[in-house]
């Protein structure tokens, strides 16, 4: 009977997770093509250092250590999860123990110690958000769902750890009744502390609550992820693999513009000749909506865990301007989900008259950016908010000719006299004789 219930849980859990993943993938592919498959050795290296090794987290040591506790516990606990799955399918109890023996005790003890550290980390994280009220975790863009999402994830982790210890503690107490012990580092103490004095039958119930509870939490967690900022635990890996490997100062050159400029500069090219096929829709310069961004921008948005390191290092944000790089990423994700919902309900050609620029991100925000790359540098999972900001600017300037008036003047100067100020090119060498 329990095998059947387990199998149903297992299959539904993974079925919906796969469905969600495919959905997310198709959302990301709403973005435009960009080649990020070159130089795979460098890409693997970046992923191993930045995602697996969490290299960039350690510029802020305290949260990095706390995060490492949760991360290590999460990774190592997967070993125990494999056993839980095996036990579920075979209706056995601690399937690996006879094979591993002493090593088994060591392994579970290790998991238990990490789980305690994770618990401490989780409580510290909850305190940082809700008691200490760290500025970057309490900004206005986090009001409502993002704040609840963050707390919910942390509470789920506490529940998860509680189930693990209920399972192991009760199991240990049962063995103690028989005059034996697993000798697990934490639960051998919990057995006396919490589960001493219960009858064997009651302990079995506790053990089962722990086992099933743990399992249900795992599947809940798995299926909650694609709706949560916490999705970074999965997407950090592909996102760092597909990182921008160029120097941060290098902005993309728009190929469509290059073609136009070459035509203008080469009189032998007939500028009225059409090169494209009939019916080709000329693509927009820059980005107005998420479909004008690249798939990497959209992957970035799904990967963002809203930690706010970008925003707390942004010079514009620190001096009270509206711009927040984190909000740029959150808006991109929200708009992507909105478009997908629309497509799901109304079909492929759905439009709602809204756009990322205007309805989510205002012009004031994007003009406050100094392109200093602090946000890009800070992101622990190599998200690039700057490339979205630049693409939005490109749309405004090249498609709508909308920009702060001083910039219109600056651009006119460059076009007329080859300098952003009104000076004559013939005066360029004046410094030599002054």
């Amino acid at each position, binding site marked *: 009977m329990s095998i059947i219930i387990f199998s149903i849980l297992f299959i539904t859990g993974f079925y919906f997770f796969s469905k969600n993943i495919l959905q997310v993938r198709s959302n990301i592919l709403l973005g435009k093509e960009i080649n990020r498959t070159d130089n795979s050795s460098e890409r693997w290296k970046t992923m191993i250092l930045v995602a697996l090794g969490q290299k960039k987290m350690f*510029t802020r040591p305290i949260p990095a250590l706390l995060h490492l506790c949760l991360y290590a516990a999460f990774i190592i606990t997967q070993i125990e999860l494999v056993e839980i799955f095996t036990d579920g399918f075979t209706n056995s109890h601690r399937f690996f123990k006879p094979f591993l023996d002493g090593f088994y005790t060591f392994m579970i003890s290790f998991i238990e110690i990490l789980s305690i550290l994770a618990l401490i980390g989780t409580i510290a994280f909850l305190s940082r958000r809700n008691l200490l009220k760290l500025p970057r975790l309490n900004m206005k863009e986090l009001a409502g769902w993002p704040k609840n999402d963050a707390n919910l994830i942390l509470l789920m982790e506490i529940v998860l750890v509680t189930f693990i210890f209920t399972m192991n503690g009760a199991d240990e107490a049962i063995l103690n009744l028989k005059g034996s012990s697993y000798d697990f580092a934490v639960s051998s103490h919990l057995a006396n502390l919490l589960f001493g004095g219960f009858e064997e039958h009651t302990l079995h119930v506790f053990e089962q609550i722990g086992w099933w509870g743990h399992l249900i939490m795992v599947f809940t967690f798995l299926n909650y992820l694609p709706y949560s900022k916490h999705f970074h635990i999965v997407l950090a890996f592909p996102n760092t693999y597909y990182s921008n490997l160029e*120097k*941060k*100062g*290098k*902005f993309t*050159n728009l190929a469509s*513009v*290059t073609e136009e*400029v*070459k035509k*203008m500069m080469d009189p032998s090219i007939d500028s009225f000749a059409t090169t494209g096929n009939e019916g080709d829709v000329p693509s927009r*310069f820059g980005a107005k909506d998420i479909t004008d961004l690249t798939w990497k921008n959209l992957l970035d948005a799904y990967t963002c865990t809203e930690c706010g390191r970008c925003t707390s290092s942004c010079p*514009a944000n*620190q*001096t*009270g*301007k*509206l711009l927040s790089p984190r909000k740029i990423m959150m808006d991109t994700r929200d708009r992507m989900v909105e478009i997908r919902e629309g497509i799901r309900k109304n079909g492929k050609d759905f439009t709602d008259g809204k756009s990322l620029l205007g309805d989510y991100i205002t012009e*004031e925000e994007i*003009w*406050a*950016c*100094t*392109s*200093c*790359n*602090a946000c*890009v*540098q*800070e992101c622990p999972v190599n998200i690039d908010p700057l490339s979205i900001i630049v693409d939005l*600017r*490109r*749309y*405004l*300037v*090249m498609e709508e000719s909308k*920009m*702060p008036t*001083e*910039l219109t003047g*600056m*651009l006119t100067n*460059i*076009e007329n006299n*080859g*300098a*952003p*100020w009104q*000076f004559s*090119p*013939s*005066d*360029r*060498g*004046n*410094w*030599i*004789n*002054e």
Partner: protein
Amino acid sequence: MSTEFKVSTMAEMMANGETPDILFWVGCSGSFDDRAKKITKAVAKILHHCNVKFAVLGAEESCTGDPAKRAGNEFTFQMQAMMNIQVLDAYEVKKIVTACPHCFNTLKNEYPELGGNYEVIHHTQLIQDLINQGKLGLEGSQTYKGKKITFHDPCYLGRANDVYEAPRALIEKLDAELIEMKRCKTTGLCCGAGGAQMFKEAEKGNKEINIERTEDALETNATIIATGCPFCNTMMTDGVKNFNKEHDIQVLDVAELIANAADL
């Protein structure tokens, strides 16, 4: 004060059948801004002193297009880039040095895809090379000995291109005390001028970015704020004035520090 030596343009060199080893890309600030011209002269003096055969483009130089690109006008940027590439290629330029990190970044990273391939270095990198080659000696210079100097990382030199050490190595050659600001190198705070902000008023906020950055510099108690970018220089100079500290604190480019120390 004019330079006491002749600075040749590429056109003049070509007319004399000569080829310079390096092109000095002066940039718009370095050409037109009175404060930045002093930095330009300091670089020229160092190059001359070290017998580097260099030339400038003079009237044939034009904006790299950096502010247009950062402002989102890819057309203006690419027009500028293509025209500059035509000029640079006509003179068969191989190597470029510039004292502006914005020009440096654009020439180095964004021109190659448009057909302009040159070896581009920042002036602090070139000066470091010259010192390492023994062409420029600062031994025994007392000018900045023991002085407290802090270095403000230009975003387009530091984070954008990972050049952090060259300017610092030069300050250390001065026998000065280099004091880092709390935010430096990868975490350095922008001066507020990048991304075409130099040419517009800031958006509404509660503070100017250059004031925030100047506070970082003041905290170090340094008497000299060194920079490696003409825009940063303007922003930090304004910041220092804002605190009425212009008589106590100098804002100088690393090239000026070196030229002064070498008594050029």
